[in-house]
């Protein structure tokens, strides 16, 4: 039985998913121009997870993201233009160009950072959840991670710790089928991620990560549980990524037609429209607005100044004598 959402809610959720999609699709093109340096890991295909989770949260709730973090940032309310500027390494970026794609953070929004270390977000999220627990205001912390992260000791340690200290942490596992260039069927020994969480005694739900409504409903149940102080929990969302592990990844490990098939059959935006909860006209209008926003974000980022060399040694410490 699906949870009833208002049209405003649905339009906002769609706008968020579409913004993530277009942000990433545009980056894919811009990266090919050579103007963007370094590693970029795109989130296209997984939008329903970030948005289905974050639509339940406000700025006081905390999330810890992954190296594939753009979607989580947008869903948690980070400024899209400041994100784009950060990815372009500009002084106007969210991290003044010092963090880049893998380290976008906005602590004012409760977004504790994308993270270059797979699995590192688990312990951090349990710490953030501890802070929420000590405050006693019903806040939660979300640890986003992929199927690759559940093979890191840090995540398994964090799950156990969360249970032991009864922290309001929710582990959101986005199972996109691949740990870098290696299939989850190979790398996850038991092949059953949800069962790992259940083995720690956590409430666990497995759902379709390409269906915004399924994600939203699953999270409603888990958030009620965590906010009520009943303990940490886990969601495993089955999803896919439309691009490689990083931009430039030739994806030789994927069957030739896999991405094409997934774009046809597992596209969360198409799925959202197919439900018919909101008229296509309204969604089309959002599409146009989003495209314009992304155009502006790219233009402004390209025009923004680079950070000066004096920035190399600032922000290392708050004070250091």
């Amino acid at each position, binding site marked *: 039985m699906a949870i009833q959402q208002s049209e405003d809610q649905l339009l906002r959720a769609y706008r968020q998913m579409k913004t993530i999609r277009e942000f990433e699709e545009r980056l894919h093109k811009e990266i090919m121009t050579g103007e963007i340096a370094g590693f970029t890991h795109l989130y296209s295909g997984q939008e329903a997870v970030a948005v289905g989770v974050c639509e339940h949260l406000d700025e006081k709730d905390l999330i810890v993201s992954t190296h594939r973090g753009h979607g989580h940032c947008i869903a948690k309310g980070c400024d899209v233009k400041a994100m784009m500027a950060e990815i372009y390494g500009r002084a106007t970026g969210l991290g003044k160009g010092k963090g880049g794609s893998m380290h976008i953070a906005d602590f004012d929004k409760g977004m504790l950072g994308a993270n270059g*270390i797979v699995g590192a977000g688990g312990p951090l999220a349990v710490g953030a959840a*501890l802070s929420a627990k000590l405050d006693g205001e019903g806040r939660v912390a979300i640890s986003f991670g992929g199927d690759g992260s559940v093979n890191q000791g840090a995540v398994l340690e964090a799950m156990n710790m969360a249970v032991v200290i009864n922290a309001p942490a929710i582990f959101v596992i986005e199972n996109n089928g691949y740990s870098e260039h290696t299939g989850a069927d190979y790398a996850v020994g038991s092949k059953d991620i949800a069962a790992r969480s259940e083995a720690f005694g956590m409430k666990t739900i497995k759902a379709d990560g390409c269906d915004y409504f399924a994600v939203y409903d699953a999270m409603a149940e888990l958030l009620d549980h965590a906010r009520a102080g009943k303990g940490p929990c886990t969601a495993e969302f089955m999803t896919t990524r439309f691009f490689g592990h990083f931009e430039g990844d030739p994806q030789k490990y994927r069957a030739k037609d896999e991405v094409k098939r997934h774009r046809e059959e597992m596209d969360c935006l198409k799925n959202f429209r197919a439900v018919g909860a909101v008229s296509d006209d309204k969604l089309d209008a959002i599409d146009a607005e989003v495209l314009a926003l992304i155009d502006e974000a790219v233009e402004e980022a390209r025009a923004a100044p680079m950070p000066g060399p004096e920035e190399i040694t600032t922000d290392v410490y708050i004070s250091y004598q």
Partner: protein
Amino acid sequence: MPVMTYRDALNQVMHQEMERDPTVFVCGEDVSGGAGGTSGEREASGGIFGVTGGLLPKFGEDRVIDTPISENTIVGLAVGASLAGKRGIAEIMFADFLGLALDQTMNQAAKFRYMSGGKAKCPVVIRVPYGAGMNMAAQHSQTMYQIVTSVPGLKVVMPSNPADAKGLLTTAIRDDDPVVFFEHKAMYGRKGEVPEGEYLVPFGQAAVLNEGDDATIVAMGRMVAFAEKALPKLAEDGINCDLIDLRTTSPLDEDAILDSVEKTGRVVVVDESPPRCSLASDIAGFIASHGFSSLKAPVQQVTAPHAPVPFSRDLERAYVPGPAHIDAAVRKVVSYK
């Protein structure tokens, strides 16, 4: 001034700071001990070295957290909570176990402020008992401070006496940057005068514990006590030394070192670590680069050998730099023509 042990001074600070600031909490293995045991005694240990004793009864289980044996997550717990408005004090039972927690220490705590362009604040303290001298062998005796001192974004603190233990830990807990706080295991029982009430020692300000014109001894942590032991015999022979206790290795009080080198021109650096990429080699290199014109003799580095810490009592005694090594090194720099 009351006399108390290094252990009690540290313990007093945690009591004072947890009372003063409700955001301060402590986590680690057996920080209270007893959870889930069959005796029902809830505070069964108060930390393996007794440093966190009495905190649980006073502040409760929410703020004095016994953790599973999961060092990386112990540090991560404190770091994550500190990013979200708390001040976490994580105890890593032995400095050697920092090896298990290096990701959260060097990739996470140390880097958040920088990566976020100055938006993040991570006021965490990682307390680490360190050092040789108790026959605990190769995996429970290492120094480790040389490794974290090399990481930008971390501050590294090494009190050599009970008063500094109090003053530096208070400063560490109130500091807004991540601090790794090294407590020498063999010093917990050492007694000394400790100021009453609130007492802070600033970071980056070395203490000059003895003054003399003939040579400079730079030391940190337990090596300071060994240098103090070496001083009287040297003085008897007319060799008077500046003794600089660094107190913090990051930030490093470069001025205190260079001022003394300018005066004496002869330097011994004493470091409990093995010699390669050590504090001794770092400081010797710093002096060579910035104080070369003052030098009258090559800088002597007194360190452990390039070997793991041995178990057998006699071997360990020979391994750890002591007063005799310092005495010999000082005489060598002083006699250099």
